[in-house]
């Protein structure tokens, strides 16, 4: 398999780009795999990659009902950060952030991870307390974090309205300089290519319709392309987790909601960081193409239709104009929605299940893109070793029985 490099680009240009190899194969499914991963989003592909790379598992397939990255991976607003409040969550997201920092080189695929900083704004005294608390906790956990006062914010973020007389005045912000954004499609494709190079079969247009069990143990899956046997099955299907769990007779404490986002037309650079606000409910960054990438909270009803209501978009526009009045004259180019899997404590599940050999990774809700590498890494460990890594031990399904919830609603207040 050829490595991507600047030199390779030149050489291929000379041969009219006719010699580029496939980024990944499209094999027919085999009859049996050691591990089947259900869901070809970033998390599923990363899981397969780390299973092969870190645990030497040979015979792996990723089954994707549509096209890889076509779920939330390809629909999200790509904010990456690790400044979560609770130690359990913070360390998992921080593991992820560390992997992000070397990901392009590791995968030999430029995922355009751009550490342009992430600000979380405070609009009330309670917001300020919460931010103090989070910043203080982050620092003790070795995660970069600082509190930025309003005067400094004005200088750092031109265009942000920091005036005392706004409806919800900005009273400060937390800043994680190592946070930022990445190119979502490249994450799916980069993991797919790297996993494929390690022998993983990536099978698209292959929907899992049943989970086969025998004596409390998983033995394979039924798919739209026939039955596939497997010793272990890892399910990572984001918004459809409950549907897959149902196939195995498991109930998950997950609610699926539409989450919407939109982009503006491409503009000359105006915003070189990521700004998020729980208080007025919106967040914004600018892509390398110049589009303002904007999102907000979930639509409050449950559903699987990947579309939300227009009033949510209206509210989000109001919020953005509250923060950046000058964007009032900018135009929305495109809006879309995805289905997110939310847990009662706004934290994920990376866990064994009552069915032996069956594992679930879900509940990332509105904020799992940032976790893609860490989630895959920890899930691969859980599947390969049949036990949680210490990083995801707290994210076991058990916690909903024991009550050991990790309440991250504060850190995950708006979708991101």
């Amino acid at each position, binding site marked *: 398999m050829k490595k991507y*490099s*600047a030199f*390779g*680009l030149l050489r*291929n*240009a*000379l041969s*009219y*780009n006719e010699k*580029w190899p*496939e*980024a990944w194969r499209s094999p027919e499914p085999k009859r049996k795999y050691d591990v089947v991963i259900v869901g070809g989003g970033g998390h599923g592909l990363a899981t397969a990659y780390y299973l092969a790379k870190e645990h030497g598992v040979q015979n792996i397939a990723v089954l994707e009902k*549509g*096209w890889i990255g076509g779920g939330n991976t*390809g629909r999200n607003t790509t904010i990456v950060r690790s400044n979560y409040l609770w*130690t359990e969550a913070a360390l998992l997201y921080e593991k992820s952030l560390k992997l992000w920092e070397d990901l392009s*080189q590791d995968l*030999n*695929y*430029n995922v355009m991870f751009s550490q342009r900083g992430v600000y979380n704004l405070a609009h*009330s*005294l309670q917001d300020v307390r*919460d*931010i103090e*608390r989070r910043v*203080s906790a982050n620092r*003790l*956990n*070795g995660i970069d974090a600082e*509190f930025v006062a309003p005067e400094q914010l004005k200088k750092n973020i031109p*265009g942000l309205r920091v005036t005392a007389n706004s*409806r*919800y005045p900005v009273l400060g912000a937390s800043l994680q300089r190592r946070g930022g954004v990445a*190119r979502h499609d490249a994450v799916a*494709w980069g993991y797919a290519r790297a996993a494929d190079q390690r022998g993983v079969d990536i099978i698209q247009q292959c929907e899992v319709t049943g989970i086969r069990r025998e004596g409390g143990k998983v033995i394979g899956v039924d798919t739209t392309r026939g039955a596939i046997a497997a010793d272990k099955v890892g399910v990572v299907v984001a918004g459809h987790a409950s549907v897959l769990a149902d196939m195995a007779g498991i109930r998950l404490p997950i609610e699926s909601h539409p989450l919407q986002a939109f982009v503006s*037309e*491409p503009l*000359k*650079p105006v915003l070189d960081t990521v700004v998020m606000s729980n208080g007025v409910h919106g967040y914004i960054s*600018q*892509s390398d*193409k110049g589009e303002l990438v904007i999102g907000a909270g979930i639509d409050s009803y449950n559903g699987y*239709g990947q579309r939300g209501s*227009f009033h949510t978009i209206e509210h989000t*526009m*109001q919020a953005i*104009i509250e923060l950046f009045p*000058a*964007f*009032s*004259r900018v*135009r*929305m*180019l*495109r809006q879309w929605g995805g289905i997110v899997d939310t847990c009662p404590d706004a934290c994920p599940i990376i866990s064994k299940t009552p069915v032996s050999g069956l594992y679930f990774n879900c509940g990332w809700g509105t904020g799992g893109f940032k976790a893609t590498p860490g989630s895959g890494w920890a899930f691969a460990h859980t599947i390969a070793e049949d036990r949680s890594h210490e990083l995801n031990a707290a994210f076991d399904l058990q*916690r909903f029985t*024991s*009550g050991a*919830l990790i*309440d991250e609603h504060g850190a995950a207040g708006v979708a991101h």
Partner: protein
Amino acid sequence: MTSRRLESGGFVDRGKVFEFKFDGRTLKGFAGDTLASALLANDVAVVSRSFKYHRPRGIVSAGADEPNAIMQIGKDDATLPNLRATQTELYNNMVARSTKGWPSVNFDVSAINALFGRVFSAGFYYKTFMRPKRLWRCYERFIRSSAGWGSAPAGNDPDEYAHRNAHCDVLVVGAGPSGLAAAVAASRTGARVILVDEQNEFGGSLLSEDTTIDSVPAMQWLEKTVAELSNCETVQCLTRTTAFGYYDDNFVAAVERCADHLGKPPGQTVRERLWRICAREVVLAQGAFERPLAFCNNDRPGVMMASAVQTYVNRYAVLPGERAVLFTNNDSAYFAAVAFKKAGGLLAAIIDSRQSGAGVTAVTNAVDHGIPIMNGHLVTDVVGKKRVRKAQVAQWSGDTSQTIKNTVSIECDLLMMSGGWSPAVHLHSQAGGKNIWDETHHCFVPGETLQQNRSVGAGAGQWSLMECLQRGGDAGRTTAEACGFVVQAGQTYETPQDQENPIEPLWRVPASRSPDRCAKQFLDFQNDTSVADVRLAVREGYRSIEHVKRYTALGFGTDQGKLGNINGMGVLAEALEVPIAQVGTTTFRPAYTPVTFGAGAGEDIGEIYDPVRKTAMHEWHEMQGAPMEVVGQWLRPWYFPQYGEDIHAAVARECMAARNSLAIMDASTLGKIDVQGRDSVALLERIYTHDVGRMAVGRCAYGIMLGEDGLLMDDGVMARLGEQRFYLTTTTGGAAAVLTWLERWLQTEWPELDVHLTSTTDHWSTIAVVGPKSRELLQKVGCNVSLQRENFPFMTVKDAELGGFPVQLFRVSFSGELAFEVNIGSNYAMAMWELLIDAGQEFQITPYGTETLHVLRAEKGFVIVGQDTDGSVSPVDLKMNWLLSKNKDYLGKRSLQRADLVRTDRKQFVGFVPVDGKTVVAEGTQLVNDPLLPVPTPMCGHITSSYASACLGHPIALGLLQSGHARIGEQVVAAQSDGTYVDMQVVSPVFYDPKSERQNV
């Protein structure tokens, strides 16, 4: 500069000359022009540069599909980025700038990129810029610097936007012949019709075509029809209005542009109005987009859509070139060629890729006008960089895999192209409808619909004028009938009948070399996506249309693929060797054309972004100069500074007044819920943890409610006003959530309970009279009930008359002092407040705000839900076991038995004092046992509240600490966010009057 304006014809007003600036040059146009037609009239060929290769680009289309003419219009704070010149109406003194090209569009240094065209192939950036890693920041800065088209304004928007809700029976989108016919037919039944069209006038294609309806010129029919619609009371006609989004439940969002075309200074009228339309039935008549042809260098200025040329000639009286060549694979473009010729242009040749050429009507027409036709020929390439000079023409056998050897040049400065038509299925698709491939016309047409909508006209693949009118009329009648209106027999129309030959698809034009090696054949002009890019994507395994789109940026431009997507799909189908129907379309998403954030936001921005809730005493507080704290939607006085006091001095003074004499607070923002109904006790028993039923009438109780997880949700005082009547208070921020919570259980789980919940938060104002002198004050203003302890003990409520006003009087205390809360109808609250303030002068009555409220309660160790708790705190953690009834079940009770909740090392609520006796630590600060442990340093809790206490003479803090209840007397370290450490002594959270004697006096 030559003028390309025709002497006569068109719909421009030659009497009204507009001056405008384009890239600093002053040019002239007419009223009725678009910026594009005015530029063409002034013979401006290059209007932009492309995104990647910075190739010079000219105007290609005349509508929403324009990829190149993306302009910055207007100045300063009123500037508008990314407007399409083709849809921008000209006004006097317009200032327009091109958005790409440095130093200018005519000379762009970045055009050097074009030399590396093959290196910058699809997805090249995924394959490079990776090493050395530290340079990625520089690479990125370089990539970003070339981003975007126009620029966002820098200042506040001087304009206003409005929202309007509308309901109708039939919404018709598009006022071309089919839409007009539908609207007229529906309106004649009496149905309420809304007709919207994005252009400045109704007519659609009729404005560009030269034809007849019922044997009179189509323009006459148009005038008559529009007049009928405008005079009909049940019809709302909206021009300059784009339906951009089709959502669930037949909800269509449309934007009306009310002001831009007027060229007035901003801020005088509503700039845009968002229409939120609920329609029972929708007729979609949005027409179709003409497709370009993918030959080499098909992006050169002077290469235009044939229909656009026809529009510029007939509607705007502009001849976009002198000598034209038409390249087509279908009949429709012949009429454009004839229009060009009739207007005085030279038409060198019609190059028709079909072996058998066009049908009789088109051919006769062309021949009558002396236009040479070459069937079975192609334009393979054009010559000329900033303007087409020649077309390279070759004979062709019809085999796409062939390469073309011999070409001849035909001189021309305008190349008209037509690759057929694609119905605008956007709204139909947004509504959830499927699209099907029409094998005859080679285009996707609307299939099954999921909502109450139907498509007609060109937008449904109905191509002849007759069909458009007939089917439009049918749709108008059927939809009106579906809404229950009585329908008369349909009208028939008479139009000229054409004899056509079918289109033969040509997704990619063969060239002198293979499609991977020949000069660029563009599919998406704006993003520089070429045929070779799509083929490369397929080669690399990006096969799904969604992957191809994302890998090559096909369709990601501001035209959203309206122009080029279909050719891309054709090329993809060829590369995958599957029929195009199998490739499918990408998802059509709102907005159909881009929508201003301001329009989406409407009026609800700035001051009225969110409702501001003020108490009845708000103005009084403001007059005292109290700074406000934002608490949810409420504004609450934070503190009442005197004579230049800072917050610390003011709060210390306020606190001492409450402790020593008399203070008064506006507590009106407390959430209040009135509970009535036969089963009130039953409901509240299940919600609250204490024994509600045991409360005597007239008693108050402090109550808490838990989530199903056993964790604290909200708290407040409740009062039993009658056997089955209660008055609940909630936290200020939790009021809405608590009411929703109660209603949720009542409505979804226990509908059998007869309980009525009413929010009375705004109805009652609440005045807290606090301090040792509070009883005296109430007596002084005159109270008709005895306030003595024996008659009115702590935690009771009475109806009373105070100073002549009827009030509810509560003897409760959130400060630990003797205190009363006066509930009074909000209309009288201000009078009561002033009465109390006046009467209180002799006791130095002191108003206080939220900060003092917080300090007073912290001195007593009372929690504030949401500040001292965070959704992870159980009542046991707060030592509130005394509130947990053993006699009944309540929400969250079982969860309290869960393994994690019975742990003894949970974080528990305690008090702290700084060991140094003077540092007020920041609220939120984490606590550690040993700050010297390496990261991740284990944390054992955090500070939730922290104040200087005037009456205690030292700072105090509250917080949650692991095993805290057992650690009283120990020390922990507060690790502040600025990196400093403060030693803290763990103490009981009750700092003041631990036996609670003062409130009972």
